[in-house]
């Protein structure tokens, strides 16, 4: 493991230097590193301990291996896509170097259970990704500052808990700490666990700390938002998964309802609210990248609920959803990057009918949203099915409402870009838009194959998940080949796929025997008898769900709350500034006040 | 709702009309309707005067083709929502070169009435820059259709081919009705 990390760090410096000569070398290096890391990592058996520059801190759990492999897939797709996309950037060398550094940081986080080392790699990733965010759009600067501050709230809470634990047990190793965590008094346990989880919650964009997600994913350089929401958010989920599984949560905290302890219940409720907020806000968005950013909030909520259930089916569902959302979010953002590469705008109502010019991008987006929305032939459905099964078997109906609203709501908001950007009338401005170059299409097609393959044969991913569950003592999820078995019932992905193919075949036969339809141009529409010459107007995309948005139009916005909080702090600073620029006599007066205080407070 | 006070208001308007604008003749059609004929140069002031007096609603601006006297009569129908009284103000314009002034600045809707009148009668309105634009008829290239000297039947025959009947059914119908004498051969 150590040499993977070293290669990555040295690679980032090499990336910087090489891309000075030729900007495309950077992504190639990133690709080589991630492939090399993938190959090396595949062989390393789980829970091997290694030392890193002399300190034996690296310890590979199956959970860490699973997340690391997943992030390597995302990074390699990102790298291939970047080889051509890098042309649009003004500062490519810094971009390449920092993205390799982000990879190094994330791998570091996954490879260690030592709290300080985890914190170090965590901060490394945050600061490496921070400087990439404002690289394309100028208004992303403010978003970057928000991103760092909110993530820092989480990581400083984590640091506080680490030192608190260190002062009690004189060790930073998580496994050891978890073993004798129960000796601490109740309130300290609560304080430690909650502050550690805030780091995970802040990074994975769950409800209270999700405010930065919209701006950062919306305004970051296009391909980087794929990594941001596909992979960096997963670091937060990894931390939550690690903490929930390592700390004996079920024994520490009293049982609350439906076989779930109080801490998981609170986490589930956080997940619920973030699903609701994510879905409702996503439906409103007109900028497609911000829309998917909010879907990331909703899906992080899903993952949190899955993980917090901590039982055989729910935990497996949460972990599988991590895989699905990572792949789906990457696919969707890469297809958006392709669209922006060709058209230059991310606003849905300015685009339209791009399917006729960019079919491959459309197919990627389509399979991406099918997996994101959780529809059977793709892997998205399996994880949602597991979470539903676990929730139903426990009878937690209030959570189910949020989960169902989330899953049905996901049909709504994924359909908005589909209809607004790809289908409908092709705008005259984009008449001559061509498909993106081959190199960009390769990662998209690869991800499509991955999603569909794992949708039908989820064996390989389930193997990792079962390994992780066994490692932390949760009873493993049973499955035989493609048949997924739970207490509430089972189904077989292969048979569903075959039946879907059979159905498709029957429909195709019916389609072929009947007389062939004649192809007519996009302009030949039923316009209820009126002659229309400017078909740009004949495209329904802006305020797509106007009637639904009116229902919850005036909702309280958390962003304004946070902004007003910051302004309050700044006004306090203004007071200080006022004090400072007074005359010398005022200073002496202050000196007098202090003396008085001294005299009294002696 | 015709309260007596309105009459006095009415009388007073009519009388002040005569004093202020000479050459204006008013004629009572019925208790709620008066016809005012004004010379062309007095029309706009009269209209403004009446508008202040509460006749704020220009319900229609049309044109009547007196082909005999070679005149177009421009008719402005004003209606007072307060008292329910209608004033029909009309003025005569020369038929061969019909030009008049726009009332667009008094009533914005008049712009479309003027376009309509121009399309069907050919009256030009100075001050209304798009009164030449077509409003209702699509691709019309003949004489304005509502002028008396335009023959619609001949236009219909020329543009829209008719069905050739072996026998003249209309002539037979006249015979049946007895207007014309003649035989119907079965």
């Amino acid at each position, binding site marked *: 493991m150590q040499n993977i990390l070293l290669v990555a760090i040295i690679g980032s410096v090499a990336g910087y230097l090489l891309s000075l000569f030729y900007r495309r070398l950077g992504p190639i290096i990133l690709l080589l590193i991630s492939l090399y890391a993938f190959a090396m990592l595949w062989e390393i058996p789980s829970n091997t301990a290694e030392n890193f520059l002399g300190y034996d801190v690296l310890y590979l759990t199956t959970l860490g291996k699973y997340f690391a492999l997943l992030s390597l897939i995302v990074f390699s797709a990102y790298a291939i896509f970047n080889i051509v996309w890098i042309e649009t950037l003004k500062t490519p060398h810094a971009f390449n170097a920092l993205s390799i550094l982000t990879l190094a940081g994330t791998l570091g986080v996954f490879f260690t259970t030592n709290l300080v080392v985890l914190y170090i790699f965590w901060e490394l990733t945050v600061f490496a990704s921070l400087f990439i965010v404002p690289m394309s759009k100028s208004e992303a600067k403010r978003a970057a500052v928000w991103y760092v501050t909110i993530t820092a709230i989480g990581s400083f809470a984590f640091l506080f808990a680490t030192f608190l634990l260190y002062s009690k047990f004189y060790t930073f190793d998580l496994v050891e700490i978890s073993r004798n965590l129960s000796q601490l008094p109740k309130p300290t346990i609560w304080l430690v666990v909650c502050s550690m989880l805030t780091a995970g919650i802040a990074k994975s964009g769950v409800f209270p700390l999700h405010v930065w997600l919209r701006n950062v994913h919306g305004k970051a350089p296009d391909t980087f938002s794929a990594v941001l929401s596909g992979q960096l958010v997963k670091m937060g989920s990894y931390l939550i998964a690690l903490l929930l599984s390592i700390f004996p949560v079920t024994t520490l905290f009293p049982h609350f309802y439906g076989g779930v302890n109080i801490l998981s219940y609170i986490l589930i409720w956080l997940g619920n609210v973030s699903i609701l907020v994510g879905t409702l806000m996503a439906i409103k968005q007109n900028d497609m990248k911000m829309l998917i950013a909010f879907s990331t909030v909703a899906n992080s909520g899903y993952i949190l609920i899955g993980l917090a259930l901590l039982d055989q089916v729910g935990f497996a569902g949460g972990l599988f959803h991590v895989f699905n959302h990572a792949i789906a979010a990457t696919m969707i953002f890469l297809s958006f990057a392709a669209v922006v590469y060709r058209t230059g705008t991310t606003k849905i109502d300015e685009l339209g009918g791009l*399917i006729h010019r960019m079919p491959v991008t459309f197919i990627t987006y*389509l399979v991406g949203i099918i997996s994101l*929305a*959780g*529809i*059977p*032939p793709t892997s998205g*459905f399996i994880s*949602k*099915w597991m979470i*539903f*099964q676990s*929730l*139903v078997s426990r*009878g937690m*109906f209030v959570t*189910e*409402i949020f989960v*169902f*609203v989330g899953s*049905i*709501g996901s049909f*709504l908001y994924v*359909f908005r870009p*589909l*209809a607004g950007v790809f*289908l*409908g*009338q092709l705008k005259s401005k984009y008449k001559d838009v061509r498909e993106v170059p081959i190199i960009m299409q390769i990662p998209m097609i690869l991800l499509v194959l991955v999603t569909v393959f794992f949708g039908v044969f989820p064996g390989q991913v389930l193997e990792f998940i079962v390994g992780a569950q066994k490692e932390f003592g949760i009873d493993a999820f049973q499955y035989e080949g493609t048949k997924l078995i739970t207490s*509430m*019932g*089972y*189904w077989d992905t292969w048979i*569903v796929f075959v*039946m*879907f193919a*059979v*159905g*498709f075949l*029957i*429909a*195709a036969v*019916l*389609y072929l025997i*009947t*007389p062939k*339809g*004649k*192809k007519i141009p*996009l302009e030949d*529409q*039923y316009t*209820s008898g009126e002659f229309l010459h400017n078909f740009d107007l*004949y*495209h*329904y995309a802006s305020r*797509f769900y106007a*009637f639904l948005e*009116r*229902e919850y139009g005036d909702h309280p916005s958390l962003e304004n709350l946070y902004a007003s909080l910051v302004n309050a702090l700044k006004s306090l600073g203004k007071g200080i500034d006022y004090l400072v620029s007074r005359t010398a006599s005022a200073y002496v007066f202050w000196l007098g006040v202090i003396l008085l205080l001294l005299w009294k407070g002696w | 709702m015709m309260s007596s006070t309105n009459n006095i208001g009415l009388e007073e308007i009519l009388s002040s009309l005569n004093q202020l604008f000479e050459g204006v003749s008013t004629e009572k059609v019925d208790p709620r309707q008066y016809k005012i004929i004004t010379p062309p140069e007095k029309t706009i002031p009269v209209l403004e005067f009446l508008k202040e007096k509460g006749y704020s609603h220009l319900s229609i601006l049309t044109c009547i083709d007196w082909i005999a006297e070679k005149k177009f009569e421009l008719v402005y129908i004003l209606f007072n929502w307060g008292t329910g009284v209608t004033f029909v103000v009309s003025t005569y314009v020369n038929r061969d070169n019909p030009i008049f002034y726009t009332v667009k600045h008094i009533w914005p809707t008049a712009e479309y009435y003027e376009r309509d009148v121009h399309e069907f009668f050919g009256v030009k309105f100075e001050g209304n820059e798009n009164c030449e634009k077509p409003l209702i008829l699509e691709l019309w290239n003949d004489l304005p259709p509502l002028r008396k000297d335009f023959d619609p039947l001949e236009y219909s025959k020329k543009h829209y081919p008719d069905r050739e009947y072996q026998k003249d059914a209309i002539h037979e119908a006249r015979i049946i009705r007895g207007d014309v004498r003649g035989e119907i051969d079965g």
Partner: protein
Amino acid sequence: MAVAARVAGVLLTAFFFGLTFEGIGRKVTARIQKRYGPPWYQNFIDVLKTLTKHGWTHGWIFDFGVVMALGGVIATLTFVPLGNFVAFPGLDNFFVIVYLFTVGALGMAMGMVGTGNPWASIGVARALTLMLGYEVPYLIVITSLLYNFKTSNISTIVEIQSVNGWNIFRFPIGALVAFICLQGMLGKEPFEAPIAPAEIASGPMVELSAKYMGLLMLMNTFMEFVEISIFVDLFLGGGNYFEFLLKYLTVWIFAIMISAVLPRFRIEQAVYFYWTVPLLLAFIQVFLVVAGM
């Protein structure tokens, strides 16, 4: 081979009985409006007529959408148990059916918006919003049922009902909520905003010329067949194949009668209605299930 025979059986029943019951439905609506109405086989003629016409296509996504829609619904159909006649005994998990069902819906939506006609996009947006409306109370009630019987396998629930009586008597409120949501799923009168002929020129179906209209009418029949058979399986219990068809007919006629007399909800009224009355009833049902039985 037995599986293929069973699948074919299910599909043919769906095709034949689906269209016949629709014909009967049209006759019942006509009777309500004091007129005779078309012969019972009118729907067969309509579908076959549209298949013989020469229509237009708007590009490959339109064809792919229509075929995917029909294919998806046929696939869902194979998993639905008709009384005790099941194509795949163990595999008819409720969530699989509901989500496989959305494959068809998404395929249709994608194909229709692919035509490029804004009427279609408005219709589909309305259909998805309505789905958000009726799906939540429906799933809550059904999951309360599943929680009660500790299984999410529909055919096992059918057997349990043949033993200790129909669920409609044990969970009357649940059945009521499920029926109201069924009315929304079928797209029948009170919730017909997505395919309103007068307002948005029959919504998604605006650009469907000849055979595509036929294929989608077939798909609509199969969708109705799936929805009602799930309702019958979950609430009207077991019994053999013919009893199932009889129960199916009664539920269908009842739905038709309601739709024949009611005007059309506006789309946000429909969602507002669904999220107040049925959701409240669903919660009462859930409370009963968790506390009571």
